[in-house]
């Protein structure tokens, strides 16, 4: 079996995942998309909920398959001492460990940084926690929307004059995963140049705060506390979402005085550009301008109007529904959506990497079946005989 030769910048790097749900798996996915070999340690006794959520067949769980393409799966029972010893053996052959189990769980399992470092001194150990691994609030737990609430993101999302509404409930895990992946890559580069591994502690809440760094700076500079601002922008006006035909919406951002003249011309209300020629004047009359724009856009088809505005240099885009996303020809043309092997001789579309790069890694397989790569991991990486592998199964260590 030749699993390692997909090319890409991280070819030759091996990552072990002790991860659950979304954030940890997303970090592993990005490293896999860059060419790393990513192995998920799983077992029937502590199955990731995304493998069982709403489905009968744990090998065909849609949520799991969505975030774990191109990974390998090995079954090792983490509830036995022998299982833990086996994982430590495996870690001797790995470069990176990513974990996002509950606070303190890896230590209780005997897989904390010190234990892993003892067998693999130059390991890059990535620990992911809501608040990070230490500190007065590190005992607290939560799901993605909690990260966004704690990190200051939710307070900035909402309609004018209304309580904060927050981002869509799905936001936060994947941002957290990306920050962890970046930190891991930095540590890998340091290791390549110095031979030194290290412990990395990533906080989900701080990841959220880094998405609003300028608002945090604002408070540092003048003490103000920004709140939710609908679709508005301090440095542009108009800047918003406007209703179109059939429940559709268009986003329009007027980023310069010239763009405003073009928009006013498109609206066939050239006097608007002479009445509100500057940003200051448009900001001062923003609510009125938003009403006029909304009245104008209301009868239009959103995509056609966006195209018309683009032709005259105005930044505009339809607000995309899930139908728009999945049918976006640009996303297919760039390989963002792409087909991979489904493990049964057919193919299956996945969400690919959000980048294009020269000499990138090949991405050819979907998410693994539970234990699909037991033979590769136990046989080829650990060098266990077939008898020894059979014994692991019989004694329920690989289950």
């Amino acid at each position: 079996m030749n699993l390692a030769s997909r090319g890409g910048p991280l070819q030759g790097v091996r990552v072990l995942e002790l991860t659950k749900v979304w954030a940890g798996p997303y970090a592993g996915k990005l490293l896999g998309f860059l060419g790393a070999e990513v192995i998920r340690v799983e077992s029937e006794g502590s199955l990731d909920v995304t493998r069982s959520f709403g489905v009968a067949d744990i090998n065909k769980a849609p949520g799991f398959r969505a975030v774990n393409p191109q990974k390998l799966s090995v079954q090792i029972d983490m509830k036995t001492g022998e299982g833990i010893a086996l994982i430590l053996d495996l870690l001797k052959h790995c470069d990176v460990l990513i974990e996002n189990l509950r606070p303190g769980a890896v230590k209780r399992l005997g897989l904390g940084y010190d234990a892993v470092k003892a067998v693999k001194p130059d390991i890059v150990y990535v620990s992911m926690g809501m608040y990070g691994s230490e500190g007065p609030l590190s005992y607290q737990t939560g799901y993605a929307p909690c990260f966004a609430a704690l990190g200051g993101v939710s307070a900035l999302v909402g309609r004018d004059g209304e309580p904060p509404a927050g981002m869509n409930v799905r936001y936060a895990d994947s941002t957290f995963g990306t920050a962890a992946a970046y930190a891991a890559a930095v540590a890998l580069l340091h290791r390549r140049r110095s031979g030194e591994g290290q412990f990395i502690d990533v906080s989900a809440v701080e990841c959220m705060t880094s998405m609003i760094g300028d608002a945090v700076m604002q408070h540092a500079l003048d003490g103000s506390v920004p709140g939710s601002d609908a679709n508005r922008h301090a440095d542009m006006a108009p800047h918003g979402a406007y209703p179109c035909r059939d429940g559709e919406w268009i986003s329009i951002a007027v980023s310069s005085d010239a763009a405003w003249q073009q928009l006013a011309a498109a609206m066939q209300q050239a006097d608007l550009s002479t009445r509100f020629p500057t940003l200051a004047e448009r900001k001062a009359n923003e609510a009125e301008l938003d009403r006029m724009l909304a009245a104008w856009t209301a009868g239009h088809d959103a995509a056609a109007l966006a195209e018309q505005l683009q032709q005259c240099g105005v930044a505009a885009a339809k607000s995309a529904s899930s139908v728009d996303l999945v049918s976006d020809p640009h996303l297919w043309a760039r390989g963002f959506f792409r087909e991979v092997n489904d493990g049964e001789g057919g193919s299956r579309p996945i969400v690919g990497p959000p980048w294009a790069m020269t000499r990138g890694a090949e991405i050819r397989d979907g998410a693994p079946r539970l234990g699909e790569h037991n033979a590769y991991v136990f046989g080829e990486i650990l060098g266990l005989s077939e008898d020894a592998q059979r014994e692991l199964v019989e004694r329920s260590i690989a289950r």
Partner: protein
Amino acid sequence: MSALKGYRVLELADGVGGEYCGKLLADFGAEVIKIERPGRGSATRDLAPFAPGVAGPERSGLFAYLNTGKRSVTLDLDSAASGATLAPLLDRVDAVIDDHPAGWLAAIGLDPAQLDTRHPALVLCTVTPFGQSAPPERRHAEDLNVMHASGWAYHTPSGSPPDAPPLKGAGRFMASYEAALDAALCIVAALYERETSGRGRFIDISKQEVLASRVDYVLGQMVAGDMDVSTSRTSFDLFGPAGIFACRDGYAYIWMSAPTHWDALRKLLGDPAWMNDFPERWLERACTPERVAQCREHIAAWLKTQDKEEVAAQAQQLGLTLVPVNDVRDLHASAQFAFRGYFTEVEHPQLRRARYPTVPYRLAATPARIDAAAPLLGAHTDAVLASLQETAR
């Protein structure tokens, strides 16, 4: 020790996406040389927030935040004469970051298509709204448009009625910050491989794709045909009583999806009678809109009498996922952030001393660090140009 010490990065970018990427690298010790237009400098110098009482190109807190630790060189890249300076610079750097519209790099003499032949060892990364191959009808886009084109806005907030405008998310630059993370990841991965191969590569980051990728758990199911696609505003949502509620001193977010959460709530509230109207395991098995509304009503009435920090601490002890909705003032006052050293004081010659946010990861051996404030416009022009001449000699 700094992980990226010794690497030299040329930052041609003058938007938030490229500048934040450069900052993520500078924080780990990379030498980032920022090219700015003579006179006005980077476009971000004109963007809020502004320090009270400061005028001119150094007044922007946004620029100050995004450009810590960098060196500023003024050079008009759009003039034909700049090539004589740019060419030797390109020979001296390991990576280049840009976020101008597609086509601009070729115009200044750094065509991505010719990277492999002209600058085979260079890592070149661009961050643009729709990638280098964007069709003409997507040429003009701000972060607002990208948030809307990615699907996030249409589905934000959760539970939006069809007639309420979709929302762009938090602040002005989510699309840029998110894309910068992927850009920095790809650049560092490329440098990793280059250590042994000596080869560079071209990396083309699309903000739209970065954002759409952030919802892969849902979108991956949709594109595979495992989940319905629709024009519904709630097609990304999870249903249930979770949400933001008003407290006495602000807001709190409560999550409830499992019987353990319901049991913890019962303990926290002292076993109130209203909870007995709900069937066993209703959150999983009988989560009807009526029950959700009823449950939310009771939670709302109770939380109105509570303080967010205190009630969150009590709830967490009992296993109920309830957290305060923090604003930026709360973040500056957070004991957890203080413990982790999330803020750091930076002294800037014109903005004076201020507490800057740092990064969300702590690397034990090679911590990220802000070594210097953002540069004054053109502060390093002479030094960098002189070093080029020295090399030429």
